[in-house]
């Protein structure tokens, strides 16, 4: 995928990545972190979290609205590609901090699905019902016309 990307720095253990979003609100530090999940189903499942570093702390629910969402998400995609090239057996779980954020992630995946599927098997996890953030207990191959609360990607 050829798209404008930000420069990325990481910690030595490759769990945490930092880049600088540059847009109409100025420069905002973005942090991506992969965190190991409990081993109920897969021993190699990791949560991908994205947030802003504001006033010396993380804001995971902030709507940055810096006008550079494509570049930010392409950078997150590049980080995921890199991370799974280093740890190819790790499954990556992604859930938005709200339904709106999950919808945004889903839309970005839908719009780039063919490109993403060159490197990843992509699965969607639906909401259990319309009233809660609870998710169904299984992931199925991602389909563009479905509504998902979370996405799971596995490197091919």
């Amino acid at each position, binding site marked *: 995928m050829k798209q404008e990307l930000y420069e990325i720095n990481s910690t*030595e253990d490759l769990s945490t990545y930092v880049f600088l979003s540059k847009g109409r609100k100025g420069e905002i530090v973005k942090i991506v972190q992969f965190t190991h*999940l409990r081993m109920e189903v897969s021993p190699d499942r990791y949560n991908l979290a994205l947030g802003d570093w504001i006033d010396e702390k993380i804001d995971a629910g902030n709507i940055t609205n810096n006008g550079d969402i494509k570049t930010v998400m392409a950078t997150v995609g590049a980080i995921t590609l890199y991370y799974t090239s280093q740890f190819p057996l790790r499954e990556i779980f992604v859930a938005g901090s709200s339904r709106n954020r999950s919808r945004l992630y889903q839309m970005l995946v839908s719009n780039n699905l063919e490109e993403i599927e060159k490197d990843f098997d992509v699965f969607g*996890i639906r909401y259990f019902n319309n009233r809660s953030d609870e998710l169904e*207990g299984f992931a199925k191959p991602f389909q563009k016309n479905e509504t998902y609360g979370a996405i799971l990607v596995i490197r091919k």
Partner: protein
Amino acid sequence: MVKDAKKTVIKVDSRLNNLIGKDLFPEKTAHANKYGAAVKIRNNK
């Protein structure tokens, strides 16, 4: 600058090492543990 995502160079920055071992997103991790850890994969649509 347009770059190829597959050729992206990611620099290890030792100044970030104070972040190692810290869960910066405990609420997201808790949510993922609650719903994501038990998700089984079905390959049929």
